């Protein structure tokens, strides 16, 4: 029973992410989703450039990727629920992403209470050993059918 429940939850989350208009606009691809871990990637696109002098992707696009991965991680957590919203998100930018390279964010929902989910995330380009950015955030946990 729990296995079909898990599969159902994963399918729901996958459909949900693919149905997000802004994630589609940024060309996000869900690479992996299970038990509170989400991996989402985004191809380099000249429309997302933030610094015309260097061709580096705007921090805001990286934020959107991290926020989506973090939200997906919350929804895929076994103790979590149907919906979530960001309460706060802090992003640290370690270095500029190399122009032309794909950016991949891995988010992990590492703790869930009755009402709050805690997430950390790392984004890297094709050089996976040197992070481009890290993030930590708190998300709401919206229970199905109201109070329990």
């Amino acid at each position, binding site marked *: 029973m729990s296995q079909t429940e898990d599969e159902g939850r994963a399918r729901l989350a996958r459909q949900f992410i693919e*149905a*997000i*208009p*802004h*994630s*589609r*606009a*940024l060309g996000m691809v869900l690479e992996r989703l299970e038990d509170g871990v989400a991996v989402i990637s985004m191809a380099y696109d*000249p*429309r*997302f*450039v*933030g*610094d*015309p*002098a260097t061709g580096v*992707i*705007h*921090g*805001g*696009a990286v*934020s*959107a*990727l*991290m*926020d*989506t991965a973090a*939200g997906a991680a919350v929804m895929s957590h076994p103790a979590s629920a149907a*919906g979530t*919203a*960001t*309460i*706060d*998100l*802090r*992003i*640290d*930018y370690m270095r*500029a992403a190399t122009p032309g390279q794909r950016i991949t964010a891995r988010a992990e929902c590492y703790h869930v209470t009755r009402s709050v989910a805690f997430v950390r995330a790392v984004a890297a380009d094709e050089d996976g050993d040197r992070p481009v950015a890290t993030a930590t955030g708190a998300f709401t946990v919206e229970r199905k059918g109201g109070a329990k």
Partner: protein
Amino acid sequence: MTRPRPEPVQVVKQRRDAALRRLVEGVPYISFLGIHFDRRGDELTAILPFDDKLIGNPLLPAIHGGVTAAFLEVTAIIELSWSLMWEEMEQGALDPLAVDANHLPRLPKTIDFTVDYLRSGLPRDAYARARVNRSGRRYASVHVEAWQDNRSRLFAQATGHFVMPERGGDG
């Protein structure tokens, strides 16, 4: 004792508005999101017209948290860059006509950015203003507030730290 007659106000305004427009239009991601800026003297207001591609939760619907973060970060960076340009224009060190696609000022780099989501972003236009709380030679701290229909009901706020661009000529 004669002073050169000041230029007509319209000429000065048009030139400054053009410099701001070129600064903003030089960044592809700002155009991608559809953000533009309104200027009253040195005060800037960022405007994010609503668009379906900005939606993050189609059920509510609500603006994507990543869009909100990006909108606030764009507002902070442009405010910071503009405040540097403004200072130089006032001193006569920067000719606003010299700002074009090939001669854009170097932009500050984000160190960290913390967004506080206060309410869900409704499917309407959003506005933001940034305040530079500290602007040193190397680092700056900027606070940004965003709202929709009511200025006093913020839907998000953020604080960010930035590394300042190298400035030519000030040693």
